């Protein structure tokens, strides 16, 4: 996965709260192998409601309501967004698991305070505009507006570097092995009894 620090793309507003992962991608599409692409499933059952991603096919940034991505742990929700070309979602809050999944796939979950959310929503309205996101400085630039977002440091490091966790963790192989050995020595009860 390629890392990124700064991106300018078309932003649209998705004026809803609690957009759960079942809405982002209905469960019935989740048997599909990722290699086939998940873009067509994005907001599949909400299409006739004039969703902005349908109106603006080139959109790359979604400005959404509170608690975006709540619900299931399905990473397929992130795949659908990423495969449809979305690079970042800006919202006052995210489902915790969704936010983690997003970062693992190069999608920025940019958390903003309510005031910033209102400013962005009124600046964009039902239209679209180019918006720039800068991860290191946690800045959002839209026309003359300069706003800030929140992102925990571990998430920022990962997005910028595009690191693969499994490779990173290999550096700790010895520590993991010695943890395992000491757990086995001191807490044998942890290992399931052959039942």
């Amino acid at each position, binding site marked *: 996965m390629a890392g990124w620090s700064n991106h300018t793309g078309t932003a649209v507003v998705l004026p809803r709260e609690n957009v759960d992962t079942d809405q982002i991608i209905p469960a019935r599409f989740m048997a599909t192998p*990722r290699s086939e692409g998940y873009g067509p499933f994005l907001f599949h059952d909400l299409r006739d409601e004039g969703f902005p991603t349908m109106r603006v096919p080139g959109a790359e940034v979604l400005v959404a309501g*509170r608690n975006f991505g709540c619900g299931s742990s399905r990473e397929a929700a992130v795949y659908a967004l990423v495969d449809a070309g979305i690079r970042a979602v800006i919202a006052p809050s995210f489902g915790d698991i969704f936010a983690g999944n997003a970062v693992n796939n190069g999608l920025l979950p940019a958390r903003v305070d309510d005031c910033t959310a209102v400013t962005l929503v009124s600046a964009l309205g039902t239209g679209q505009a180019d918006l720039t996101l800068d991860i290191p400085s946690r800045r959002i630039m839209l026309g003359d507006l300069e706003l800030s977002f929140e992102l*925990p440091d571990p998430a920022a490091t990962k997005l910028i570097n595009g690191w693969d966790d*499994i490779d990173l963790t290999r550096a700790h192989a010895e520590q993991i092995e010695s943890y*395992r050995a000491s*757990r086995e020595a001191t807490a044998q009860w942890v290992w399931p009894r052959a039942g």
Partner: protein
Amino acid sequence: MSQPRTLLDKLWDTHEVTRNADGASLLWVDRHFVHEGSHHAFAKLAQRQQGVAAPDLTFGVVDHYAPTQGQGAARLMRASAEVRRMIEQLEANCANHNITCYGLDDPRQGIVHVIGPELGLTLPGLSINCGDSHTSTHGAFGALAFGIGATQVAHVLATQTVWQTRPASLRIRVDGALGPGVGAKDLALGWIAKLGADGARGHAIEYAGPVVESLSMEARMTLCNLSIEGGARFGMIAPDATTRDYVQGRAHAPDGTAWEQALAAWDDLHTDADARFDREVVIDGSEIAPVVTWGISPDQALPVTADLPAGDSDQTRAALDYMGLSSGRPLAGTPVDRVFIGSCTNARIEDLRAAAAVLSGRQARVPGMVSPGSSQIKAQAEQEGLDRIFAQAGLEWVASGCSMCVGMNGDLVAAGERCASTTNRNFRGRQGPGARTHLMSPAMVAAAAVTGEITDVRPMLKGRI
């Protein structure tokens, strides 16, 4: 003296292998459960030609796509090609990596969050992961249990560890006592309605207080299960005698000296007296009535005695509209088209007994399905004669799986239909495109089945519990 610590701190410290400069912890994983949906993670492993680090700590379960018609392996006969492929794919992945898999032909098969505890794989003091958000269920044993996405599942498979930043701590203390006909589901939906669907976001919840201490393990699991619907990835309860009694003697639970060793380790699994939580919430259990969701988010819930909200926000209007309800009308009396009793939230033996207590000698006015949380629970319920009570009432008694909780196996609620359901998500389309879901307890679902409408179960319990 060392700093007083919360249960969360103790579990976290025990499992932390290392911490990086950003503050993310690398945690050791004691148990990892995979299911059909884990195919993305196995595909990632295959791509990197990577093996599974600890197959002895990894367990596969067929649940999300499990067909509920028929018995054992014969359940596949009528399944669609896709369902069959998903199940066979999991079984093949497990076989390739030497992972024990509870398939359709295994009498221990069931929903992952039901069979982990049932088989004694879930224990106090463990760290437990699964690519499923309701992994918080296992926290009921005093375990560090949380749901993860596919990338993290692949990481756990490859390394038996997971990167995670320590959440903030929230204690929900429940004082008083629950009234008859009121249980863990009402308690959970009640706090979620109060704090909001993202009210506990970023937090690990510890449930405590006299009401929580008095709950059975089944009820504790229901409570911890629903933590995620209030935004918390973790829910936990300190282990006590109830926990030990439940665990002792289960198939994979420690015995002999290992049991003694485990008991000694579990002794410390509680929040120290002076430990501080980042947030505290206190609830009076005596004030809780049976709770029912009316909308499309789990926090859109009310006591069954209440009126539907005024449509004073876009959010509320959209929810009422989707649900086909009018503002201001009483919630009780809303006609339902079908009922569903099942899922990792409410399909344990106690849940089935609670529903059967209401249905015994009564007829359901609407169709419905009862899917036990595991094949073992199914067998136990049949031994107790619960299946006959459901059948005589006119409900369908089917095999175990996620079933109508998520509809992946094809058990769906039709568009526009209203379902009284013991599941955990009333999201738009969760039970099928256009389906309308009202979440409630098993007893409340049974009451709705009998009257054909949303009904306060309490008067129907007279002389029965």
